């Protein structure tokens, strides 16, 4: 039991904007009554729900290949073992233990990996079990699944729905993710799709059909999170039109367009980027069915890892650096390339500016979440700096001066004067992602919510303030004090359990016998073995 008194509370879901009020914790959740216990005097401090990263890459095969591939990325950034903590290494792709500790030390208490191939679900769960402190889960890749494309092509809506539900259950995933729908399948023969209406060879479907059908399926199954979409043509000049087409194709259906920064480029393919943020923001402002996270780019060396195989090859061609490509049978692919974002580069500076434009131009903070698409745009460790860029106009101007001036002059960023308030920061880092994920007990401090609480010493340097919280409380235990871990726990894995007609299993079984190399019976993840500490989130069809 804990009570936090005298703190300035920012809890947007409950409409609390900086009021000084007391918060009580009992049995790991927020309580309406003072039940005694430790008192934390938060005078002069800011109290928020724990941070929630709704789109990062922290577990599973491509993350782990990136670790294996980049010893040079780890050796300068290490985690010593302590009485409480396992050792590890970091850089852009930290080891599992280090990932959990660093999120916690930054006041983040929940993180979702955004792209796991179904066949590797067991691997992702194994890594999540070695990721301490945070609550977690992952989205499973479906946008290039051959069985799914066949059902869509045949117009079998029911079979599609049953299969998707079966796959979510088999993998113990939280949401449906699509990555370059149709394009990754095409990459299996070195091709790609370029518009929403290109045919996926051999399957008779288009990206548009995949997007629409899976958005419908997410709704029909009553999944807590809407369809999570990595659009076609990521990173290609002129791709904003594809992004706009994707938004239009959703046609009122709910959809979350992830790392939108990477999809907001004008210009001609192969040429220089221009910002098309204004056009896309304008559309989103008028379409409440759409939400985004940013995928902010920050300058420095990082590792690009994507389920978008052809994009990986494009980055390899652009950088000439080492390149991993993995194609996974019947399901997906991935590409991994180290990348350095340089402030003097025209393209990189444009990307940086577009991300910030998204934050500053989006009217409704409830439909935009702070992400870097860790580690693609930058490490999650750069969130405090991004918060400063959003809250401190003068600092932002200073940083704008350091970036490629020709590039910046072609964006609206230098003209944007908006400064985020603490309330708005609490929305884009806590309340909005929790709401978008349908996690009722996260991102808020109302009675009954998970007692995941971050308490910051107020500091006019917002980066310093958000980098080292004074206290981090997770499920009612004070885990971090003054930036140091005081208690080590393991969080829970969240997944969904949608129901389906079991007749579909006969059809899936036949499909497995023909095209998989793993037996149908050996495919589903064993719940008790791989998710020892889990929460099944209800679906509401």
């Amino acid at each position, binding site marked *: 039991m804990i009570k936090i008194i005298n703190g300035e509370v920012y809890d947007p879901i409950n409409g609390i904007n900086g009021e000084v009020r007391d918060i009580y914790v009992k049995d790991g959740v927020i309580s309406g009554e003072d039940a005694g216990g430790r008192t934390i005097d938060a005078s002069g401090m800011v109290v928020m729900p724990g941070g929630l990263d709704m789109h990062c890459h922290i*577990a599973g095969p491509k993350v*782990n290949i990136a670790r294996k591939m980049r010893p040079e990325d*780890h050796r300068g950034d290490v985690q010593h073992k302590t009485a409480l903590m396992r050792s590890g290494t970091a850089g852009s792709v930290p080891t599992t*233990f280090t990932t959990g500790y660093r999120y916690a030390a930054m006041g983040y208490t929940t993180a979702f990996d955004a792209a796991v191939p179904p066949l590797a679900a*067991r691997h992702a769960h194994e890594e999540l079990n070695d990721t301490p402190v945070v609550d977690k889960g992952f989205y499973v890749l479906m946008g290039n699944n051959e069985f799914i494309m066949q059902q869509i092509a045949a117009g079998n809506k029911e079979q599609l729905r049953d299969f998707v539900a079966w796959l979510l259950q088999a993998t113990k995933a939280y949401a449906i993710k699509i990555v370059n729908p149709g394009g990754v399948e095409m990459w299996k023969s070195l091709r790609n799709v370029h518009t929403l209406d290109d045919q996926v060879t051999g399957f008779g479907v288009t990206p548009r059909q995949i997007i629409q059908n899976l958005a419908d399926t997410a709704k029909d199954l009553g999944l807590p999170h809407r369809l999570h979409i990595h659009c076609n043509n990521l990173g290609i000049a002129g791709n904003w039109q594809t992004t706009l087409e994707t938004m239009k194709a959703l046609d009122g259906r709910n959809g979350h367009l992830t790392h939108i920064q990477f999809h907001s480029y004008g210009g001609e393919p192969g040429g220089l980027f221009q910002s098309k943020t204004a056009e896309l923001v304008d559309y989103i402002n008028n379409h409440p069915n759409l939400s985004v996270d940013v995928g902010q780019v920050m300058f420095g060396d990082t590792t690009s890892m994507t389920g978008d195989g052809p994009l990986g090859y494009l980055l390899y061609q652009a950088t000439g650096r080492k*390149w991993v490509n993995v194609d996974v049978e019947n399901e997906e692919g991935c590409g991994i390339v180290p990348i350095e974002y340089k402030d003097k580069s025209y393209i990189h500076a444009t990307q940086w500016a577009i991300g910030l434009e998204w934050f500053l131009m989006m009217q409704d903070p409830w439909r935009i979440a702070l992400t870097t698409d860790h580690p693609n745009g930058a490490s999650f460790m750069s969130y405090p700096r991004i918060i400063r860029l959003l809250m401190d106009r003068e600092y932002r101007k200073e940083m704008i001066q350091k970036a490629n001036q020709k590039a910046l002059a072609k964006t609206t960023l230098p003209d944007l004067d908006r400064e985020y308030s603490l309330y708005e920061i609490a929305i884009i880092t806590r309340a909005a992602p929790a709401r978008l994920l349908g996690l009722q007990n996260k991102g808020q401090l109302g009675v009954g919510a998970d007692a995941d609480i971050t308490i910051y010493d107020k500091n006019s340097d917002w980066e310093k303030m958000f980098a080292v919280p004074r206290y981090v409380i997770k499920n009612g235990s004070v885990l971090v004090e003054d930036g140091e871990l005081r208690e080590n726990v393991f969080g829970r894995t969240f997944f969904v359990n949608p129901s389906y007609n079991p007749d579909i299993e006969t059809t899936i079984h036949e499909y497995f016998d023909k095209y998989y190399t793993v037996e149908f019976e050996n495919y589903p993840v064993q719940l008790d073995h791989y998710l020892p500490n889990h929460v099944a989130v209800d679906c509401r069809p």
Partner: protein
Amino acid sequence: MQYDHVVCAFCGCLCDDIGVTVEEGQITQTKNTCVLGKAWFMEHGKPQDLPVARINGQPASLEEGINAAAEILADAHYPMLYGLSSTSCEAQRQVIALAEILGGSIDCCTSVCHGPSGMAVQGVGEPTCSLGEVKNRADLLIYWGSNPAESHPRHMAHYAVTQKGMFIPNGRKDRTVVMVDVRRSLSARAADIVIIIKPGKDYEVLWALRALILGHKIEADSLASTGVTLEQLTDLADRMKKCKFGVIFVGQGLTQSRGKFMNTTAAFLLVRDMNKTNKFALIPMRGHGNVTGIDNVMAWQTGYPFGVNFSMGYPRFNPGEFTIVDVLSRGEADALLSVASDPVASLPSTARRRINEIPVIAIDTHESETTRIAKVAFTTTTAGIGAEGTAYRMDNIPLHLSKVLPSPFPSDEELFVRLISRVKELTS
């Protein structure tokens, strides 16, 4: 009792369609196994009279064994932990934790098999795929320095050569199979084309092939020392450029012959270059049942796939410095813990010399040369027969291993949980 869809965790193929019949506590029959897998199941638990622990060759209780082993480890200044390719990921997680507590080095069989493939990945990356992609799409298969008929007997039939797949409707007829090796191995019978290279000349041949693919001219004479003719190589290059999807399976003939990581780097670069025009991938033929798993667990816990040292309190990686053969040959380690491996039988004499000088703790499911010379030896049950767990196939696909037999012995995981707890008592 009949079990179906059992995973055979003997080799890196991890075939998961195995049938196992258990009668009166013994495995009496298996279905779908190859000769190696059949022996792995049928010979399980033999000889039957092994004690759970031995100290200096004398039977001891598990607790006595754990005490003795913990004392050796707690007294050591530089313990070396090694093996891990034939146990579960769950056990591997514990052994890495132990290495960290001890501040020792930990290395796995990767460093003496496909470590050079791992180093090639670190140098140039890796275009690869799952085995189902091979089954469904690959029309050109090149086994290089690999003899699957004897090392992975079901690889060709279950995954690669004879399987029918989505875009390979006729199976074997739709594929061209090439064997590149230093001799005509048993696998050559399954090949359409056999290319025999002189030992130690893989790098030269790969580099020449790469040049041909990139459109460079090669003098026939320059290949004289390789045993391969320009005609053979040109024919192979043409086939590679005409295929829809080609896959090179890299064996230890490439990783452990002269050139080592330069050989694998050449192969990886060749495959990378191919992707300018043709879909191409490469899969290392990982040997032991879960050697791919230890690479993965090491990577997610330490950031590095093998050859890791914890002396500084955090993981450091340096092949040649923290790898088993090097640490032992330089006479550095002052205790050795071997898990699910037989270093006495498999390591070079320079390393064995050091093993004979230092206390050895051996954990294995059966008697081996290492358990025989160990100061403390434990008998554990086999992951996938007597204990559940997880293993990763050669293409990084994770599978769940089930338990089909009760065992009088602890699993590796259980043993290490207890050993860690005793070591912590002694060192705190």
